[in-house]
């Protein structure tokens, strides 16, 4: 299998974009949102131009076609992560998926129960659990992180009071990949459910939910070459079946009377309103694209870029990479601190050079506090990034240091 970045780049119209003063775009912000291949945009447009009927609702041809495309996309997603079709719920984003589970657990979590998360979570897998704790009187506990940004697994935090353990599958800041299967085993022994935030895991690594054995896995289509506006909640069927509905309205009902209503089994129970079938068509095309590359190859490509970036940044005086210094159990998010230059200023200089990175706490404020920085600059890599782009990043950082006299 060859992995030819130059060929891949041709599939992504946005990468032809020239930015500031005609500079070619060096897009190192896929961790925020990825670019889309033309095939994804075509699939979405084709839906609107030919099959745009409300899925699940009409008995006419367009609606039938819309339903088939939508359900076909569900099958594609299920296949991609090793799930059954009826274990895949479409939401608007990973964030909604987490909220869905956190809200649906409201009635089964009680004062005295514990919810276990970690200090390295994205706010999307943190604030909803704070809110659940607040609604129910349960206690929020968390694993801390080591100075290298690894999860510090204090197993004494997993007790018979633990109702759910919610953990990131890969940090969006340090790239650290926690030992999910191991934590899951411990959590299950204690009778707790496990939810994994796969927003940065599923786009970048082969994932098999059966092997991980997690109860819930959430992720977003837009970070894996798919359209914005569509996310996924995977749940073991029994785990989904145990949850009451979250968003209610049309389609998810069985019988509605003014006096009360009954609801469909999963996954329908959790999907209400006209389904986002065009976005689902786009996500299916994205998965086909990733499948064509092979997720093992995607992971290997990113590992190579990450290694190159770690090496290059290690050589720049005054630059400190947050998180693991090697690619072992580490994905392609490289956040760093430049001594004497604020991340906003670093990113501004890089932007002027055409290099798109992110500056701030990247929705992981507690992690930044834990690592002793207020904010950081972050580069994230994906299938279309090249070694030359990694080198441009390193050069850009040096230029920023010079510009600010640091």
């Amino acid at each position, binding site marked *: 299998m060859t992995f030819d970045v130059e060929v891949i780049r041709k599939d992504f119209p946005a990468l032809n974009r020239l930015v500031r003063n005609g500079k070619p775009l060096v897009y190192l912000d896929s961790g925020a949102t990825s670019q889309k291949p033309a095939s994804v945009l075509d699939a979405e447009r084709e839906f609107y131009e030919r099959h745009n009927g409300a899925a699940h609702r009409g*008995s006419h041809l367009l609606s*039938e076609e819309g339903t*088939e495309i939508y359900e076909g996309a569900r099958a594609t997603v299920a296949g991609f992560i090793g799930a059954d079709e009826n274990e895949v719920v479409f939401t608007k984003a990973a964030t909604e998926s987490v909220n869905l589970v956190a809200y649906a657990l409201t009635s089964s979590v009680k004062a005295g129960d514990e919810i276990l998360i970690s200090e390295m979570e994205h706010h999307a897998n943190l604030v909803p659990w704070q809110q659940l704790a607040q609604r129910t009187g349960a206690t929020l506990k968390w694993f801390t992180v080591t100075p290298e940004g690894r999860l510090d697994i204090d197993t004494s935090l997993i007790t018979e009071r633990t109702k759910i353990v919610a953990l990131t599958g890969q940090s969006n800041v340090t790239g650290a990949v926690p030992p999910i299967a191991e934590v899951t085993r411990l959590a299950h022994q204690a009778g707790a459910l496990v939810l994994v935030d796969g927003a940065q895991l599923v786009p970048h690594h082969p994932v098999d939910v059966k092997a991980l054995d997690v109860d819930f896995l959430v992720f977003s289509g837009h970070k894996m070459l798919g359209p914005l506006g569509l996310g996924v909640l995977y749940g073991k069927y029994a785990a989904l079946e145990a949850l009451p509905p979250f968003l209610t309205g049309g389609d998810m009902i*069985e019988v509605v009377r003014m006096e009360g209503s009954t609801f469909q089994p999963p996954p329908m129970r959790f999907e209400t309103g006209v389904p986002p079938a065009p976005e689902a068509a786009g996500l299916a095309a994205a998965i086909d694209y990733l499948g064509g590359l092979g997720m093992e190859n995607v992971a290997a490509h990113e590992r190579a870029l990450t290694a190159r970036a770690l090496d290059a940044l290690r050589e720049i005086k005054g630059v400190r990479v947050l998180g693991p210094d090697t690619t072992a159990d580490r994905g392609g998010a490289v956040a760093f601190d430049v001594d004497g230059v604020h991340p906003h200023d670093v990113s501004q200089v890089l932007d002027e050079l055409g290099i798109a990175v992110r500056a701030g706490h990247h929705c992981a404020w507690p992690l930044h506090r834990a690592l002793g920085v207020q904010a950081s600059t972050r580069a994230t890599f994906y299938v279309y990034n090249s070694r030359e782009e990694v080198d441009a990043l390193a050069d850009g950082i040096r230029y920023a240091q010079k510009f600010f006299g640091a």
Partner: protein
Amino acid sequence: MQLESMYQEIILDHYRNPHHKGLREPFDAEVHHVNPTCGDEVTLRVSLKDGADGEAVVEDVSYDSLGCSISQASASVMTDLVIGKPAGEAMKISDAFLELMQSKGKAEPDEDLLEDAVAFAGVSRYPARIKCALLGWMAWKDATARALSEGGQHS
């Protein structure tokens, strides 16, 4: 016009003159099923008896229903097919019908097994109508499973 391939004469006949319709006593289990998108509903009763070899036999299926031509005709055909059959054999017919409905018009239905029900092959090309055709069958399957699990007391 493809309408005739869906609405075959045999279907329209069953629709206009449904067989075994109306709720009857005695029965071992009664269920109520609804199609959530259109509100079509069926109340269905199953009465089992012990067959010669000790296996349960479908003695009677009676039902009351509200619904479209496809759901009405399908329930009628279903009763013709399962009444008098050993429960196991009737389940096999039900499975074959389910398979036919999921075939997207591409199956070669077994006419010996499905008899009049092969007329529904055309329906399987219209995904929105498959639920209609299955409503009565699913109710029968549910009711029979319940009757069987109630400990073999079939009379």
